[in-house]
């Protein structure tokens, strides 16, 4: 794990996707302070304990404890968390959180629940990979993240369709992309 040396760069300590009982669905830790599985499990446990009873369904919520700030949002039976240092700009973390849950929402076509997330775990893992790279924020626009996950090139959409037809395994991904455009348009109209 390479560390980001310049202290002025905003750093995301981890992205967590837990289910409604606090169990891991997908997590990614970026900083060297929590590398052991036990430390991570402890951390997830305390985050869950402190947030489970709050209402983060409408607006994303925020909590500060130990030496971290956590922004989080509950969607369906899932909980999305983004952790940063206690001195981090809360609004920056919030934009990462938005990218996190919005992109997954786009990829899963609004069906954000534990079952679909597990069935499409590859998409979720790829989305996390596209948002944060080793703690550094890579992209915060949900639609851009989603197109990159589905391997659509920014701006053009043709070369993949032939392959998709010949390969039934790709259908879900292409469909996902189709719905992304739709939803982006819808969210803009809102």
């Amino acid at each position, binding site marked *: 794990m390479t560390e980001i040396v310049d202290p002025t760069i905003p750093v995301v300590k981890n992205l967590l996707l837990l289910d409604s009982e606090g169990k891991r669905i997908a997590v990614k830790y970026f900083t060297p302070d929590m590398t052991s*599985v036990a430390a991570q*499990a402890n951390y997830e446990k305390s985050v869950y304990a402190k947030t489970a009873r709050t209402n983060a369904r409408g607006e994303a*919520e925020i909590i500060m404890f130990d030496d971290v700030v956590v922004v989080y949002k509950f969607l369906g039976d899932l909980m999305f968390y983004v952790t940063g240092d206690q001195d981090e*700009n*809360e609004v920056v*973390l919030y934009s990462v959180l938005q990218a996190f849950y919005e992109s997954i929402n786009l990829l899963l076509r609004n069906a954000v629940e534990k079952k679909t997330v597990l069935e499409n775990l590859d998409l979720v893992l790829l989305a996390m990979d596209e948002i944060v790279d080793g703690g550094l924020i890579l992209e915060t626009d949900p639609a851009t993240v989603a197109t990159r996950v589905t391997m659509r090139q920014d701006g053009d959409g043709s070369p993949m369709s032939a392959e998709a037809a010949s390969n039934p395994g790709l259908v879900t991904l292409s469909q996902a992309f189709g719905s992304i455009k739709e939803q982006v348009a819808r969210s803009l109209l809102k």
Partner: protein
Amino acid sequence: MAATAQNTLEPLRAGGDKAKDEDMEEELEYSPFYGIEKGAVLQEARVFNEPHVDPRKCQQVITKLLYLLTQGESFTKSEASDVFFSVTKLFQHKDVHLRRMVYLIIKEIIPSSDEVIIITSSLMKDMNSTNDLYRSNAIRVLCRIIDSQMLLQIERYLKQAVVDKSAVVAGAVLAGAIHLAGANAEVIKRWSNEVQEAINSRHPMVQFQAVALMHGLRANDRLAVSKLVTQLVRSNVRSPMAQCLLVRYVAQVIAESQPGVGNETRPFYDFLESCLRHKSEVVIFEAARAICNMRDVTTRELTPAVTVLQLFLSSSKPVLRFAAVRTLNKVAMSHPMAVTNCNIDMESLIADPNRSIATLAITTLLKTGNESSIDRLLKQIGGFMSEIADEFKVVVVEAIKALCLKFPQKYRGLMNFLSNVLREDGGFEYKKSIVDAILQLIREIPEAKEMGLAQLCEFIEDCEFNFLSVQILHLLGEEGPKTKDPARYIRYIYNRVILENATVRAAALSSLARFGAHCPDLRDRVLQLVRRALYDNDDEVRDRATLYLYQLQRAPQGPESVDPQWRIPAKGLEAALTAYLEQTDTEQPFDLASVPEVAAPSPAKAKAKPQGLAAAVAAGMSAAAAPVTQTDEYAEMLKAVPQLAALGPVFKTCAPVQLTEEETEYKVVCVRHVLEGHLVFQFNCTNTVKEQVLEDVSVTVDLADAEEFSEELVLPLEVMPQEGAGQTYVVLARPPGSMALGRFVNILRFRVKEIDPATGEAEEEGYEDEYQLEDTEVVAADYIKPSFTPNFRAAWDALPEESEMVDDYGIGQRDSLQDAVEAVGRILGMQSCEGTDAVPPNARSHTLLLSGTVVGDVQVLVRLAFGIDAQRNVAMKLAVRSESAEVSEAIHAIIQEA
């Protein structure tokens, strides 16, 4: 395996144990990963090696492998390399989605350096592909796995990618470079031109990463950073994230620049202010935060930032409310008046469903509140306290304590509040914080003592924490006998002797004994109570009872022997006793005289750093608390030296002054202790030279410029080992109670003995040497210490009117009244009263009340009226009252000289 997340987080796979399986069945939850097992998945991974791979199937297997990793499973080295080798085969397949998963899993199982070579050619091929996503992902993987040597080989391609027109490619390589820059700064620096071009990118995230990388490369060069900042401020940075970084850089440049003189504006302040009007919230908040955190920020500079944050307070987004209230809370610490405009919004936040926000709002209100609003606030908080978790309550209690110290007249309401919450349910940490708060208030506010003691008595009647009971009983023993009516505490204490467990009984007995010792008229009754404990079933309690009976009745030193004056540091005693017990021969009785009286230089106590909300709220408060403990430590040090202890109590210990440059062979720090008739220079010397022992170390103080002093005593330091430290003292006498000033030239004298590196022994004969130190100066402020005056008006009226001396002074141009108030406060070194150290924003005049004690325990009060005109010229009227006219004159003299 023992430490995988499965154990604690119960994943969706069947472990070996039965109970887990049953759980799963009850849940009846469908999961594609149900029953997943590492061994089986590794078997499945063999499909990668088949001649005709099914991309869909392979994707699934990779997902399963990643799932296992996510759940905390780890692969052994050989398992990982097996997976890696079979995954590399998949590069032959054209399926884009499969390729994306291959990239991902390679980043997860980072191959060892000798394996990397297998895939570099495949990745290089992808790097030159026509598909941007292939290129960007290949670059990200490469940046993650290559070493410095390979970086040199592919540098050309990476450098070219920085200016790629595709955002995803440029972003990937910039992000990779930021990670690589730590170890390979020299290589990455050669890309400066390309990075510079990327800064102008149309795509926001590319711009952000390019700016971050550029700064990272220049971070060690202040000039280069300031050039970059100037360039960026002028150019139009479109990306909000990049703008955010720029705000941080600007804040750094401001922090490093000299504070502006007079009303000259800070460099770049206008830029920060313009960022407050940015369309992105990220930038607005970053700028507001930067302004609030500026060193010596003035009220005028704060105002626009506070206005913006005030808008955030009523945002529908909890994140914004939290960010704003946290920042304002911090501002309230140093500039309470600047935040008062937000009080109405803050009050509505007390009901915020997010308890962190509510707690921060309350503590902010407590900091900005004025005397009249306290009662109303307390009422609001009362209801709130029962709803929040202990960790928040602790924060509120801290804030209440601080408020009470600020407005001592209000102690009644605040103490009542504390005692009410003390009676409610709560954990140990919470109760401890309340008790600590009351203890401190008792110490600082004399009027509050009786009330506080009574509350604590009530509390121990029903206290489940031994630690707190013992602490309180000790305090009762110390303070109780000095109160007007000591008898009233006896009942509470004796109840403990009857009802509690052995630890508390013993403590209660000690407490009783002190009443017996210090209150002669209660002694007989106390003796009777102590006698009853002679038949206690605990050894310690019986022993104490016997000891106290002896001390109170027959001890040759009289009843006072109950609390002996310990000159021996507890640490030293502990060490000596441990050493004694380790000896085989315990026939010899332990000799107290064998305990060294000089406290071994204890490493600075690492205080538990407040975390979470407490940290957000406490920042700044701890700074005020630190010097007190330091003074205590010095007092202990002086007490440990018999010749110094004989001089009497220390009146004031001044802040340490460094007499040598940093990083010289010998480091000397001087601490001045002011005593009634003496002045003690304590020189803390550190020998940083490895191969030398210094002996007979002393400091010669030249008194040519300080006629009123005469040298009384020099205590040299016998030996200072290599890389060791020690103290030497010089005692000067002056007429008791006088405020003699002077400047002293200091020379460090010592004998050097070289150490033979081969044997580690010091040579026999050393040579004398000396070392010129910086001068020390005794100023008038050394003789004044801040003291607490709860009711300034009453104290002022109580002092003789004829001692009052009034004069006017002009103190020239100042940034603001606050500036002037702080400057004068610093010179006099006195305690401000009634929160008058904070000037309301835009005030044209202000009155500062100061209280202090001058050496010889003479009380002195100062009333300072400030006025500022349109040209920012500040004038002040200084009125001093004290118990002696001489002292009043001296205060005026201080101001005249300054």
